[in-house]
Every structure is written in structure tokens, then in C-alpha cells.
């Protein structure tokens, strides 16, 4: 019954979507004030709620493990802990697409209910664009990925969820990323409305900005969570591999980063109009490309995709429709947009243009590297593109960008002189020079790590330079946000470079009592014993590690899951302020010996702490801008009130 309710709700949402689209398009025509178009906002709100009902139904059938639902039988099992039974609802294709659509619907509903800054025609165009996107994905669910399909007769047992996905990090990772993808679709719909109604000024930027920021925060957190999950759950000690799935989330992030800076210029200075519009289109395209890459199955194998092209074909068609349509609209209307205000080369805008161009180039490299192997495979050759390609090629663009970041935030809008910021620039150069000298002569760090560490040190200080000449108590919240986010980049970069330069790995076969040195630690295996969990059994190593007199026990496990049968390696991590000790229990090596893999990774945790700071900076920015927006609206209202009163008095 619940499954049918969920499906019915999905159909109802499709109907409401059609209504919202129809009414919105009517309302987008100039001079329309008809009854039908007035339904746009209510349709969007009700649609969001109906989708929520549908998703709740899916959660329900997963929570109770209703094995008469095909999706549950294929992806869940009654023995799993409740949290993973529920998160299993989006740990599969159909469920995750329903989550996507639900978040999209809820965002539309939020915009429809609360966004009052733009005129009626603009809002109707915006909601029509949202409905157009939503309709495509709801159709995709209904026609080729029905999550509520019944199984007759019901299965006796569920097939279970891949144990690697039974993890809190991965339970939260997809919803966060989808929030980011969908947030960019909202920004995109604003852009479409801006193009349709020819409003591409600062007002557009101000309504877009919270959504771009929110999407960007969600992507930042989603990527960081995914990276940390890969780091501790996959058991190979790495945190980023430039895997296509990782790139699928990185590309929208890069585009969103460029977009949010460009939106900032448009909001503050009314410059970079076409550029912002184009980035809005690109950012949404990247989230569509990401969805396509992950959801079409093309990454597993181009051939698998070609053999069963129904789903992949559907998403590819949606991708072509939306991205093609968006670029077509852009091409038609961009010429009519005024470029906006001008600025000098040395100015805040100038630095931000540099940031935008470099981010776009990095995006192009990542897109090339991600798609090239797919293209090559389609033409019959297979190539692999990994870190040795991406790291240096993206660095060509990232290093100049970070150098400009040292100075850019200090510059004034419109026109500035480098001589005004002589002292901080000299300070940055000194730190860079000192850092490079020390690293080159006293360590064996590689070229990129060396540059990364020196840049991180300089940026850690430079990110606070905008405070210069300001009274601390009067620094706007949004500026704190931007400084914190830039500081977060420095922190994260330091972690990445340090991990790559100074990690120490030991791979040993030891028996109980043997002592191994790894970095500043000594580790000794005391025992390997069997342990049991709710749906797994495991061999657990008992390793005593000590550094400078303080001792801790690490207990890495080799887990054997049933339902489905699969082995995983649970790393044991010892976190200290200056890094992590990472231990893996390997196979038996004969004669009572066990394989141990130990890493000492100095400052590796900074990678994710940096990401948290970046996200926190984004959050401060949102609050700062929303507060500023509310304040200026209040002032405008106050001014209007006083003027009216004055006129009234003058008349009297």
C-alpha cells in the first residue's frame, strides 16, 4: 500500500509539474495577469510537499524492509542496522534519483514560498524553468527507474547493501552532493529567468547568491565527506584519486566556485553580466554531466552503457536537452545584455576575472581528463588518466590563481595601485621565498608539494590581510566568511602537500611481539583475534603503538560481511594534532605472521578541517548577505515611508 502511495504521489507531482510549467510559461509573457499563471507558486509549493510524501514512502518501505518492493529486495536486508536500512533507500540508482527530484522540488517550493525580491514575471519564468528540469527527471523515474515497482512473489531475503556503503559518511554523502547539484539548478533557473525577462543586473545576482553559496557549501562538504570516506573505508590510505566519480563532483564545485565569485562582482559592482550568466549555465551543465556520469553506468564500462542504453540514453537526452537549451537561450539573449560596468586591470574585479578564467581552465582540464578515456574507448583504444596527469596540468593554472589570491582580496573595487599594498605583498614574497628555500634544501619534498606548502604558508597569513585598516568590530560578516574560506584553502592545501611530501609507509609481515617503527611511532602487534558485529565477523589486530611514552591500542579489522558476501578492510586511525597513524590488517603471511600496512601521514587531517573552514566561511557569507539584504530593504522601506509622509504633510 505504501509503495502504491509513493508511486501515486510521484504521478501527482508530475501533474503538478506540468501545471507549474504551463502556468509559469503563461506568466512569463509580458502583460499577463491571468488566473492560470497565478497558480505557478502554489503548484511549486504543493509539488515539493507531494514529492516529500513520495520520498517518505520510499524511506518507509526500506525501514520495514518490505521485500515485495523490487528495489528493497535488490538493495536491502532486514539484518542491517536501522540507519543503514534507511540510508539504503538512496544507496541505489532509483532511490537516489528520487532523492534528487525530491530535493529539487523542495528547493522550488522554498523559492516559491519565500523569494519576494523579484517581480512576478521573473519569478514565474524561474519556476517554469524549475518545472521543466523537474519534469524531465520525474519522467525518467516513472518511465525507466520506478523505485516502487513490486516484486511478485516477494523475495524471501533481501540481497543486502554493499558493505562499503554501510557507513555514516556514505549515508550522508549523496544527499549533500545532491543538495549541491540541485542548488546549482536553482541558480540556473534564476539565470534563465534573467535571460527571458532581460534582467541580468545586481538584483539577479543578489537573489542567486544564497543559492550558489548553499550549493557550493553542500558540494564542498559532499566532496570532503566522500574523500574522507574513501580515505578510511577503502583502506588504501589515499584521499583523492582523480577518479571519474570524484571528478563528477569536483567539476560542479569548480564551476560553482567561479560562479560565486562572479556573482559577487555582479552584485557589488554591476560588472561581468554575461560572464556570470554563462557561468550559471556552465555550473548547471556540470551538475548534469556529473549526474550523467554517475547515474548512466557509463563509467563502469562504455560497453555496458552501449548494451543497455535505456537509462543512460534517457539521462543523455535530458543532458542534451537542458544544456543545449540553456546554451541556445544564452546565445540568443546574451548579445542583448549590456556588459556592465568597467574596471581597471589592477582592481578587485580584475583579480576576480583572473580567478574565474583560471578556475574555468582547471574545469576544462578535468572535463577533458574525465571524458577522454570514454571517447578513446569508444574509438577502440583504452587510456588511463590519473594523478600523474592531473596534478601537474591543473597546477599550471592553480598556482598562478593562488598567487593572485594572495593579493586580490586586498584590492579596491574598480581601480587600485599595487604600490598601495606594497607591505603585504613584500611579506607574502618573503614567506614564499623562505618556505621554498627551507623545503628545497632541507627536505625531499617533490616540486608540487614544495610549491603547495610554501603557497599554503603565505596564503594562511594573506587571507587575513583584508582586515588591514578596518576596525575589527565593524568588519562585515560576509567578509569574515570570505577570509575564513580563503584561510580554509590554505589549511587544506597544506594538508594535501604535507601528506604527499612527508607520508611514511611501512609494509611488514609480523608475528605477535614484533616491533615496527613508522615515523615517530613504534608499533607492536600483540594479537589477532576474531570478533563479531551485527552483520559481519572479523579478524581484529591488536596493535600497541607508542610515541614519546604515550601508548594507544589500534584495532584494524578485516571484516567478512554476509548478505552480500564481501570482505572489507577497516582501517584503524590514530589522530594526533600533527597527523594520523593509519593501520591496516592484511592477510595471514604464514608461520603465525600477519601482514600489516602502516602509514604515518603528517597533517593529513588538515585537508578535511580546511574543507570544514571553507564551508563555514560560506555559511557566514550567506548569513552576512541575507542580513545585509534585509537591512537594505528595511532602509528602502523606511525611506519610502518618510517620503510618503513628507508628501502627505506638504499636501496638508
Amino acid at each position, binding site marked *: 500500500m505504501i509503495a502504491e502511495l509513493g508511486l501515486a504521489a510521484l504521478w501527482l507531482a508530475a501533474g503538478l509539474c506540468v501545471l507549474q510549467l504551463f502556468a509559469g510559461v503563461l506568466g512569463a509573457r509580458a502583460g499577463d495577469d491571468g488566473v492560470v499563471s497565478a497558480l505557478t507558486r502554489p503548484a511549486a509549493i504543493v509539488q515539493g510537499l507531494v514529492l516529500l510524501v513520495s520520498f517518505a514512502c520510499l524511506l518507509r518501505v526500506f525501514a520495514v524492509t518490505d521485500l515485495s518492493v523490487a528495489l528493497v529486495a535488490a538493495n536491502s536486508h532486514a539484518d542491517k542496522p536501522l540507519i543503514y536500512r534507511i540510508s539504503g533507500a538512496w544507496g541505489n540508482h532509483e532511490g537516489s534519483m528520487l532523492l534528487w527530484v525530491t530535493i529539487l522540488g523542495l528547493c522550488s517550493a522554498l523559492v516559491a514560498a519565500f523569494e519576494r525580491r523579484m517581480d512576478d514575471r521573473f519569478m514565474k519564468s524561474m519556476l517554469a524553468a524549475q518545472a521543466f528540469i523537474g519534469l524531465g527527471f520525474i519522467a525518467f523515474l516513472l518511465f525507466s527507474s520506478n523505485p516502487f515497482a513490486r516484486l511478485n512473489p516477494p523475495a524471501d531475503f533481501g540481497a543486502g547493501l554493499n558493505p562499503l556503503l554501510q557507513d555514516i559518511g556514505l549515508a550522508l554523502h549523496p544527499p549533500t552532493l545532491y543538495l549541491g547539484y540541485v542548488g546549482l539548478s536553482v541558480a540556473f533557473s534564476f539565470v534563465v529567468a534573467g535571460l527571458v525577462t532581460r534582467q541580468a543586473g545586481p538584483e539577479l545576482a543578489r537573489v542567486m547568491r544564497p543559492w550558489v553559496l548553499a550549493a557550493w557549501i553542500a558540494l564542498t562538504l559532499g566532496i570532503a565527506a566522500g574523500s574522507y570516506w574513501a580515505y578510511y573505508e577503502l583502506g588504501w590510505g589515499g584521499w583523492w584519486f582523480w577518479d571519474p*566519480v570524484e571528478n563528477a563532483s569536483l567539476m560542479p564545485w569548480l564551476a560553482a566556485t567561479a560562479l560565486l565569485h562572479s556573482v559577487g562582482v555582479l552584485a557589488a559592482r554591476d560588472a561581468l553580466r554575461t560572464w556570470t550568466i554563462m557561468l550559471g549555465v556552465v555550473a548547471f551543465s556540470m551538475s548534469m554531466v556529473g549526474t550523467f556520469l554517475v547515474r548512466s553506468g557509463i563509467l563502469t564500462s562504455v560497453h555496458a552503457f552501449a548494451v543497455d542504453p535505456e537509462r543512460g540514453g534517457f539521462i543523455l537526452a535530458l543532458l542534451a536537452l537542458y544544456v543545449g537549451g540553456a546554451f541556445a537561450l544564452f546565445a540568443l539573449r546574451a548579445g542583448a545584455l549590456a556588459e556592465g560596468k568597467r574596471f*581597471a586591470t589592477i582592481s578587485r574585479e580584475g583579480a576576480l576575472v583572473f580567478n574565474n578564467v583560471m578556475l574555468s581552465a582547471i574545469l576544462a582540464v578535468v572535463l*577533458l581528463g574525465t571524458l577522454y578515456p570514454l571517447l578513446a574507448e569508444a574509438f577502440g583504444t583504452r587510456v588511463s588518466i590519473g594523478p600523474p596527469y592531473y596534478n601537474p596540468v591543473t597546477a*599550471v593554472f592553480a598556482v598562478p590563481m593562488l598567487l593572485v589570491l594572495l593579493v586580490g582580496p586586498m584590492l579596491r573595487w574598480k581601480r587600485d595601485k599595487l604600490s598601495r599594498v606594497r607591505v603585504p605583498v613584500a611579506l607574502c614574497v618573503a614567506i614564499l621565498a623562505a618556505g621554498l628555500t627551507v623545503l628545497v634544501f632541507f627536505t625531499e619534498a617533490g616540486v608540487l608539494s614544495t610549491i603547495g606548502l610554501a603557497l599554503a604558508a603565505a596564503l594562511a597569513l594573506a587571507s587575513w590581510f583584508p582586515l588591514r585598516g578596518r576596525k575589527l568590530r565593524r568588519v562585515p560578516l560576509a567578509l569574515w566568511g570570505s577570509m575564513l574560506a580563503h584561510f580554509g584553502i590554505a589549511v587544506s592545501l597544506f594538508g594535501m602537500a604535507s601528506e604527499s611530501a612527508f607520508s611514511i609507509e611501512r609494509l611488514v609481515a609480523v608475528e605477535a611481539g614484533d616491533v615496527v617503527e613508522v615515523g615517530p611511532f613504534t608499533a607492536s602487534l600483540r594479537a589477532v583475534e576474531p570478533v563479531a558485529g551485527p552483520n559481519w565477523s572479523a579478524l581484529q589486530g591488536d596493535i600497541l603503538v607508542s610515541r614519546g611514552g604515550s601508548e594507544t591500542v589500534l584495532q584494524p579489522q578485516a571484516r567478512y560481511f554476509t548478505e552480500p558476501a564481501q570482505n572489507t578492510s577497516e582501517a584503524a586511525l590514530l589522530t594526533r594534532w600533527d597527523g594520523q597513524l593509519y593501520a591496516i590488517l592484511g592477510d595471514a603471511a604464514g608461520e603465525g605472521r600477519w601482514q600489516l600496512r602502516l602509514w604515518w601521514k603528517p597533517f593529513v587531517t588538515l585537508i578535511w578541517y580546511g574543507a570544514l573552514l571553507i564551508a563555514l566561511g560560506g555559511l557566514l557569507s550567506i548569513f552576512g548577505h541575507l542580513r545585509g539584504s534585509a537591512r537594505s530593504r528595511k532602509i528602502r522601506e523606511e525611506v519610502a515611508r518618510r517620503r510618503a509622509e513628507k508628501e502627505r504633510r506638504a499636501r496638508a
Partner: protein
Amino acid sequence: MIATGLAAIALAVAAPGAGQAVSSAPLANTQLADPQAEAQAQDLMEELRCLTCQSQSIADSNAPMAGDMRHQVRSRIAAGESPEEVRAWLVERYGDYITYRPGIGSATWPLYALPILFLLIALVVLVRRLGRNGE
């Protein structure tokens, strides 16, 4: 260094009840004694694809085939081959797909030509965008 490898092999063969992966590829999970050679081998292994996995290097994979290849890499480096010689030998055997560092060949040149093009476009955009408005 050869002696190290041989000693390791002898040890593994002598070990009764050792797992199959251990006896056939003793250097799969044993680091070379010479830290410099081990570092070279490690750097190379991180750039070689595990052919039976999805997106993993042989350094990161538990698959038996990755273990065999780690053994190959370590024993060849230990025998005095340079990492590039080992890579070339593997590419000859398994094709370009094996290495995460695509060379410049008939199938891969656009990977390097296009970023250069991106760089040029970036420069043109910057000069036009920033130069035009400058004083």
C-alpha cells in the same frame, strides 16, 4: 639488491602454509630493503593501474593480479632496472591502459595539446578582458 629479492623468495618458499599469493609473488607485500629502490618502486606502483579493479592503482589494490604486478615491479627495480624501463616493459605487455601517466602518442597527444590551447585561450581572454579596460 638481487640478493635481497632472492632471500625474500627463499624465505617465502621455505614458509610452510604460506598463502598462495605470498609464495608466487613474495614481493607483493614486502618492501625492498633499500629505501631508495623501494621509494622508486612505490612511486611507480602508484602510477600503474590495477587491471582487474575499477580505478585503483596496483599500490592500493588487494586483488591478486595487483599483487603479482607489485612483485614484478619490485623485483625488476631490485634487479637494477630504472622505473621508466619497467613502465615501458609493462606498457608493451598490457598497452597504454596500464599507466596513469599517459605518454604523448597517437592516441594521447590531445591530452597535452588541449591544455596548451586552454592556456592560450585563458591568456587571450585575460588580455582582452583586462587589457581593454586598463588605462
